[in-house]
């Protein structure tokens, strides 16, 4: 390597070093430590005791763990299609309006930058069964009142609604950027050929938007698998474990039951699940994605 190349190389390392340091200290090192802890029995007070894979074995055999896996899957199924579908509709609408786009963009993005903790407290009031806005709306449209956060099944619906509310703006903005990058001459050509508006959406917009849709879907699934703040504030995983998603389950085991080893094992399961999910999406999803 010549001197010039060596200096270039050094510059390269220098430029990425802040990122490497931050990733190492806050991501890779804790990941390594977590794996180590997952092989121990440890309550943060008494000394650690090596137990091998016992925590993983216990996890696989635990009904409560599988309940959390199920709840997390339901949460993903509840949030992902709706928040992306809605975002698609909003993005196409925003893409067609000429005036006031900045205003609507801000309105739709506001929930993303709102503190989830603060919003969750407001949503608790909204879902309050007697005086809450949610039941008022149900009354107005003539539907039956719900118990919301006080019912094990309905509580999940409530937190799914909050999850959609929180994420739809992010998805919309990304999809909107994708829409705006589709060259207008495709539409012009289609118009000349006499295509209808629906045909253009189906044959031009959706295929050309697919890389962005794919990205948004991957991000949304990861975000849904990681949901925590709304759960800890609104339901504490209850009632009767009805909203006990995996991240909350592992938090509870770590910081309330003080089972750090077991919680670390659950964390590794969650990490593995997200990893495999994402890999699978790339493997099977990419075939349906059209790059220009």
């Amino acid at each position, binding site marked *: 390597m010549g001197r010039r190349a060596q200096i270039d190389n050094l510059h390269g390392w220098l430029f990425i070093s802040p990122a490497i340091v931050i990733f190492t200290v806050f991501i890779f090192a804790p990941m390594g430590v977590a794996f180590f802890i997952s092989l121990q029995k440890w309550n943060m007070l008494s000394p650690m005791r090596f137990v091998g894979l016992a925590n993983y074995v216990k996890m696989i055999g635990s009904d409560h763990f599988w309940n959390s896996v199920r709840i997390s899957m339901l949460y993903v199924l509840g949030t992902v299609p709706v928040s992306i579908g809605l975002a698609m509709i909003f993005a196409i609408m925003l893409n067609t309006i000429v005036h006031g786009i900045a205003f609507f963009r801000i309105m739709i993005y506001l929930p993303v930058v709102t503190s989830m903790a603060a919003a969750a407290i407001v949503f608790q009031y909204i879902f309050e069964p007697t005086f809450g806005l949610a039941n008022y709306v149900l009354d107005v449209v003539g539907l039956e009142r719900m118990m919301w956060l006080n019912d*094990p099944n309905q509580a999940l619906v409530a937190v799914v609604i909050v999850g959609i509310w929180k994420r739809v703006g992010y998805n919309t903005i990304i999809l909107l950027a994708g829409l705006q990058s589709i060259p207008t001459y495709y539409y012009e050509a289609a118009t000349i050929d006499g295509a209808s508006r629906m045909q253009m959406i189906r044959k031009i917009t959706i295929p050309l938007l697919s890389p962005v849709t794919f990205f948004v879907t991957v991000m949304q699934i990861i975000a849904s698998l990681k949901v925590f703040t709304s759960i800890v504030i609104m339901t504490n995983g209850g009632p*009767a474990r009805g909203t006990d998603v995996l991240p909350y389950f592992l938090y509870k085991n770590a910081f309330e039951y003080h089972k750090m080893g077991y919680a670390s094992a659950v964390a590794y399961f969650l990490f593995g699940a997200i990893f495999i999910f994402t890999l699978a999406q790339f493997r099977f999803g990419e075939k349906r994605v059209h790059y220009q």
Partner: protein
Amino acid sequence: MYGLRVYNSGWIMDSFFHQFGGTLFNEDRTKSLVNSSEIKEAMALWQKMVAEEVAVYQGGGDGSNMDAAGQVGLVMRSTGSIQWFKDNVTHDWGVVPYAIGPNRAVSLGGGNVYMIKRTTEQEQLAAWEFLSYLTTTENQIHWSLSTGYMVSRQSAFDSPEIQQILQDDPRYRVTYDQIQYSFARPKVEAWPEIEDIIQEAMTRIVLQGESVDILDQAALDIDELL
């Protein structure tokens, strides 16, 4: 309007079970007795009351709102809520000893203060100083008057301030009157998790109408943790 509001705080459940003659654990706390006939009977009564809408099953902030709005006739709450009631409830209200089941029993407890053994001497001295400060007669009086909690010192109880409030407002007196019926809370390491298991069972029984026999499974789950 409901006659009674119940919820699944550990100490509420424990007091209730004791009133029916049930205890959560055997003597040496190696086995859960949560599926004993006494506790099943207690749970079944709660279930019946809620099913017939005599009682409402509602905890947390929503539950407190019901108290303040006068939607419940009776509620089991901490003596530490007395000041909250004075601040938030506009209708007339009183305090009576906790009595529902055949026996008189109430769990006595609250936030305990601990020092951790394995720390430096300096930290222990600091902790001791803080604990001493927390428990001075003066601070105990202030704390009790601001909440309704029981003072933890005889000297605070004997103080003119506390004696005065017991005279002026007999609602504070119940706390001390029921000490003779009190029992200590169980001390088991896995209590937070055990409490969750019992709470979950209570929600399923009382709110979802499941059979009290699900307590058999709860007992097995708890045994695993003991």
